[in-house]
């Protein structure tokens, strides 16, 4: 049995999804059968050299056979470099759960490349498309594997009583159809585009269509092109759009806690997200919605495509493409999908069944089983390193970190499309 040390930051991530991912991953490892977790150690940014040295020394003394990095920040480079410096002969397997910021951190990974080649290394991606992206940078793709980020089934589940209760509170009748988006409200999540599509559909379909969205407003613009927005912009854009809306039917319902999110998911009839965010490696919001037995309409971008494999009959994907300086889903097709889905209210039994199926693939317990199975695979050989394409990517980020993928007139560079080609690829079952 392998002796594993988990490494994570003590300070929780500012990204809400990453915060739950890290604690859920930790729980999944602790629950995994035949996996011995000897310790969880905390590695935070801002450690001085003395603390870093002490931490690395502690790791060497424990002599675990595997170190598993379950957090996305800080980048593990400093700790691994120090570990190698003080004990070059100690070479445990290094396992990294890869988050959406892998490309963003490419300069740090490139710097670590020569040191990593002294260790057996495994990268665990949360989706097939992210694995494809990562594989395009590796000399040996045998070291990547896909295990989804886990979701807590005791928080996200279907409950028909709760559904009736919340719908009653919201004043929804049995004929009303509620579309729901949860997550950050930001430019790359295309929330305003989604709202406009809902507005158009509502004018065609009459009074029974509802669309609610929940989550914090986020002014992140397109940092890969160097586009920044001052705080408050996206909210003001929503305010401007909201003047033309029937706010009884299309509503912002604030930033909700996990239990409130579940209640909303239970009340809703379809989860919808058009995100084309450059770091959309998985999709915690759709995963949570699926655990509540919701059918989904999703952009076929990044990790979202993977949900089609879990729920082929109840996940509809909208292809994305490059349009007018943005990466956007096919909005005409989206409206068709909304019109087709409207009215298709699943029965409680169908919802239960969907929820069960999602739980089998996405819950902490399911991920524990996947991790246990993975731990029994044969030992890895030393890491063969990142390839030449990755060297270029790392150097691009090193030289122009504030706008690595900008081309003339503010559009995306051709290099962006090359790097993110796996994210654009249509999901095929």
């Amino acid at each position: 049995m392998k002796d594993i040390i988990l490494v994570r930051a003590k300070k929780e991530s500012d990204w809400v999804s990453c915060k739950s991912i890290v604690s859920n991953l930790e729980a999944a490892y602790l629950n995994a059968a035949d996996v011995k977790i000897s310790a969880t150690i905390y590695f935070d940014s801002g450690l001085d050299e003395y603390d870093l040295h002490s931490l690395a020394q502690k790791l060497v003394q424990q002599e675990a056979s595997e170190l598993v990095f379950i957090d996305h920040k800080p980048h593990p480079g400093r700790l691994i470099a120090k570990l190698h410096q003080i004990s070059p002969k100690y070479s445990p397997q290094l396992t990294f759960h890869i988050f959406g910021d892998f490309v963003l951190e490419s300069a740090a990974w490139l710097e670590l490349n020569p040191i990593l080649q002294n260790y057996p290394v495994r990268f665990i991606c949360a989706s097939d498309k992210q694995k494809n992206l990562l594989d395009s940078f590796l000399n040996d793709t045998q070291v990547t594997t896909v295990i989804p980020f886990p979701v807590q089934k005791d928080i996200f589940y279907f409950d028909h009583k709760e559904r009736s209760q919340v719908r009653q509170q919201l004043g929804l009748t049995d004929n009303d159809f509620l579309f729901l988006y949860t997550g950050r409200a930001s430019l790359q999540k295309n929330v305003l585009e989604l709202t406009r599509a809902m507005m158009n559909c509502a004018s065609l379909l009459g009074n029974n269509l509802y669309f609610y969205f929940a989550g914090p407003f986020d002014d992140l613009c397109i940092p890969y092109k160097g586009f920044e927005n001052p705080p408050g912009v996206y909210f003001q854009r929503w305010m401007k759009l909201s003047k033309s809306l029937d706010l009884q039917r299309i509503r912002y319902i604030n930033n909700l806690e996990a239990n409130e999110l579940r209640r909303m998911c239970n009340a809703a009839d379809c989860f919808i997200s058009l995100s084309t965010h450059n770091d959309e490696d998985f999709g915690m919001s759709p995963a949570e919605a699926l655990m509540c037995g919701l059918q989904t309409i999703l952009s076929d971008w990044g990790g979202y495509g993977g949900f089609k494999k879990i729920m082929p009959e109840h996940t509809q994907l909208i292809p994305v493409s490059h349009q007018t300086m943005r990466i956007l889903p096919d909005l005409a097709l989206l409206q068709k999908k909304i019109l087709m889905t409207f009215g298709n209210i699943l029965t409680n039994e169908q919802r239960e069944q969907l929820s069960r199926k999602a739980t089998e693939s996405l819950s902490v317990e399911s991920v524990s089983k996947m991790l246990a199975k993975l731990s029994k695979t044969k030992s890895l050989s030393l890491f063969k390193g990142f390839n030449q394409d990755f060297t270029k990517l790392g150097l691009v980020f090193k030289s122009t970190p504030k706008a690595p993928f900008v081309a003339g007139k503010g559009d995306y560079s051709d290099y962006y499309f090359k790097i993110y080609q796996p994210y654009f690829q249509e999901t095929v079952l």
Partner: protein
Amino acid sequence: MNDLTWLTEQSKDEIYTFNDVIHRASSYDSVINFQGYIYQHSRYFFSPLNQIYLYLIDDIASLAFFNKVFVRDGLLTLKLFFLRHPYPNGLQTKLIINSRFKKFVPRPWQENILFYNYKFDGQIKEKKKTLLIAYHLDSLHCPDEVLDKALNSISNESYDEILCLVTGMPKTSTIDFVNKNIFSKATITAKNIKIPFRTVALNEINPRVIANSNFLEINPYHFLFSDCFLRWFLLYNGATPINDEWLLNDNDAKKIHEAMVSPFHSVEISEPKKFPLMHDQMFDEMDFFKSEIVPSRNQSVNLCSDTYKRYVQSLVHSHAKNNQ
């Protein structure tokens, strides 16, 4: 009904020129120092009302681009603006100022003035887990007795934790680090409070924690700043205020527009029905510019100097006395 598009919408010209104007802000050292001094409060956030600090403007002609500007200044720099520019000289722009400053508007400027008040849409005093306390360590802006009174008022409250956002040091030393002097001050003042208490920087607080927090802003006189980034950021992320001093209901003005500035609060803009009687002498202070405090109108005032701050404060007090 009057067409209020000029107020409610940001014209294309305004959007285009606004960035230019705010980026061509005054380059006087004293202005830059003052900007650093109140940095955590004066940080820019977007609003279609063209929000600006007047002390950053060297030439009022640059305001002419805009139908309206939302004035974020506190009394200190608003007063300076009126002293530097006693007359609008044909400027058509409406200055939207905090209605609590109505008694400090010189007569020639009254036609150019609209007022704003804040309105909180949630439930004030709704109890949450954490308390955030925001105050600026400046004895004129936030006198010790006011701070002590505020801290005493919460000494019997039950919170899991109190996080103290203390500002008042040059920005380079407070963006990422807690100044030890501030920390010891905060620790001393917190002695009466049994709740765990620590000093943090804004970027150290997870937005989720903010959403689960009440906040207490100690800004009794709006002296150094009025419209405040810190307050906006906390409200924008869902914190609930426990004091309502910053919410002022002005019955002497006619409400003409309400603009949401976060999902939870808005500003009400109103037209003044009347201005309080002015003690005109107060604005006939050309001698002010001959004094040692301000060598000439074209040179900048050391806004951080206690001398200038005390000067404005004395004007405020004498004015208040004359209007009693």
